[in-house]
């Protein structure tokens, strides 16, 4: 790597051992994250988004889940081979996480104070009083009124939105470089979602925290993310800046995703189009393109060969993997043409493309 990224994930492979065989949860995921950048990750449930994140911080459910290949580097330091104690020091202080369900992500029998203070004290040699003062500041920063008295509360005394604010305060307690937010607003009311997202954006921008924002809500990504990775069946199948991806989606799956969200401006003709079929069973090792079975653009080649991520227009110049000038890449042998996006189906092509 010429210039070092904050976080570099290369060819990450994760398998789960189950009674029915090994589940190929993540199959060679690579991406980079630059400092201060917000990377959105989209895809339907079970596509490997969350598993990838858990693998980064070494929190795969034991003993079923294992990283079987690839590397994760944080500022050049390999994480997948770290000892548990070294990895523990990374978690929370350098890479922090926020999870989907604030109702279950806080320990019900501990006061908010204990949960915030223990986080700080796990990484910093500070007195309880100092940690407590810091906790009060944090609660104030995430917009909890009367932080001093609320510190004495138990999680069940907070609403869902407030709990997620507490989770954010906890995640940012040690000013981590990377924040992984896994569907942080999915479980919240729509009105609360916007508030929490605003807060998250404000705090990460102020602190320059790089963020991986996982969501299946493309609307959220459009407003929050600098870049987007679209994942399918344990692999990134399209990646680019948010603008590129929303304006010129090239992978048939991305097109399907975009066409299946309701849009107020009616650009897609107002009709919601589901993607037919279901994702492949990850128990079988993938052969060919994983989207083959559901794809309207498929060719014979797609059944046997697995497409790799490649620049959309045939690779002019070096591939940029992060920042506002990131190259738009797609893993598809027969990408969707711009004119086909609105139609949602392949159109007859001049010159007889490989149909």
């Amino acid at each position, binding site marked *: 790597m010429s210039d070092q990224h904050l976080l570099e994930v290369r060819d990450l492979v994760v398998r789960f051992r189950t009674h029915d065989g090994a589940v190929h949860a993540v199959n060679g995921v690579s991406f980079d994250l630059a400092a201060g950048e917000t990377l959105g990750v989209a895809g339907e449930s079970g596509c490997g988004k969350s598993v990838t994140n858990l693998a980064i911080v070494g929190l795969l459910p034991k003993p079923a889940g294992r990283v079987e290949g690839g590397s994760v580097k944080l500022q050049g330091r390999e994480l997948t081979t770290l000892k548990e104690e070294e990895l523990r020091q990374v978690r*929370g202080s350098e890479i922090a996480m926020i999870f989907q369900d604030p109702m*279950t*992500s806080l320990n019900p029998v501990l006061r908010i104070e204990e949960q915030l203070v*223990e986080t700080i004290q796990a990484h910093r040699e500070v007195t309880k009083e100092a940690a407590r003062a810091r906790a009060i500041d944090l609660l104030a920063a995430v917009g909890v009124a009367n932080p001093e008295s609320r510190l004495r509360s138990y999680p069940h005394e907070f609403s869902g939105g407030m709990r997620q604010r507490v989770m954010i305060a906890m995640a940012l307690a040690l000013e981590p470089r990377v924040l992984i937010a896994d569907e942080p607003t999915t479980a919240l009311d729509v009105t609360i979602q916007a508030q929490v997202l605003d807060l998250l954006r404000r705090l990460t921008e102020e602190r320059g925290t790089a963020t991986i924002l996982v969501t299946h809500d493309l609307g959220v990504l459009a407003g929050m993310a600098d870049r987007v990775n679209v994942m399918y069946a344990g692999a990134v199948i399209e990646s680019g800046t948010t603008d590129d991806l929303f304006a010129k989606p090239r992978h048939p799956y991305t097109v399907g995703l975009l066409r299946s969200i309701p849009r107020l401006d009616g650009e897609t003709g107002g009709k919601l189009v589901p993607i037919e079929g279901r994702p492949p069973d990850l128990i079988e090792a993938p052969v060919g393109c994983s989207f083959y079975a559901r794809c309207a653009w498929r060719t014979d080649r797609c059944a046997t060969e697995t497409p790799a991520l490649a620049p959309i227009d045939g690779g002019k110049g070096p591939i940029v993997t992060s920042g506002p000038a990131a190259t738009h890449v797609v893993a598809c042998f027969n990408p969707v043409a711009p004119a086909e996006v609105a139609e949602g189906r392949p159109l007859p092509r001049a010159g007889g493309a490989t149909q």
Partner: protein
Amino acid sequence: MGRYIVRRLLAAIPVLIGLSILLFAYIRILPGDPCVAILGQHRTPEACAALISNLGLDRPLWEQYITYLLKTLSGDLGSSVVNSQPFLAEFLTRFPGTVELTFGALLFAIGVGIPLGRLAARKVGGWVDGLITGVSLFGVSIPVFVLGLALVVIFGVILGWLPTQGRIDARARFDATSGILLIDTLLAGRLDLFVDVVRHLILPSIALGSIPLAIIARITRASVIEVANEDYVRTARSKGLKEKTVDSRHVMRNAWLPVTTVVGLQVGGLLGGAVLTETVFVWNGVGRWVVDAIQNHDYPIVQSTILVFAVIFLVVNLVVDVGYALLNPKIRYQ
């Protein structure tokens, strides 16, 4: 919190009333002439007359019940038809023995069951887990008296390591103030006798404690596994807490909750099992007394023992519920 305790106390009242009706009915539904049924071979005209006036059998039923209730509440729990001794006096001399045995069994069940459950949960599906599951299966499948007899044969008869009968060396002489020998021997400053009491207590405790041990180990295992999969445990790990902290503060603090409830529920089984255990180990407690009472058809003794054991069970579970509430802030603040 105070309101919670009051509510739990109030909820116990209908159960106590039901219990009193049931046991009131018990003596009166015995088939045949009550005099014959209750006194049996101890029947004399005088005893018969005394019994009828004592139980008020010549009065209307509701009046009999009120009398029974008032007597019971004032601590008059009837008396033996065999030797006319009042129930309560005899019960109180026997009860410390049963308390000691139950305590020993519970200590064994908790002290071994919880670590076993935690160990099994840590390595789910491993051979340790399998072994512990097997042991707990054996524990719930072997009757206390069979296990008791087996222990007597192995450790008493064959190996000769431990005493198999009684609560203490019969030749021991010292002041028994509380009746609980573990305390009395210490109060008397007789460490040698204390050790002797402990040695007497070991085998009966293992026999009686085996079922609760199995149940506690199972529930601990299940509870720890369930809590370990909770989102907040993942949160705790993602914060970079030490594994020890995750385990003690996040997993166990929550896993205790169902375990405490189950421990409370074991007390009923222990009091029942004490009847059999005391018989096997010739243990001087309420259980052996009841067995004698059964053989002598001494119904008032059986009746009042059931009452007292049921009340003890209710009280213990009330205490456990309050403890549960103290551990669980969700209930504490309701």
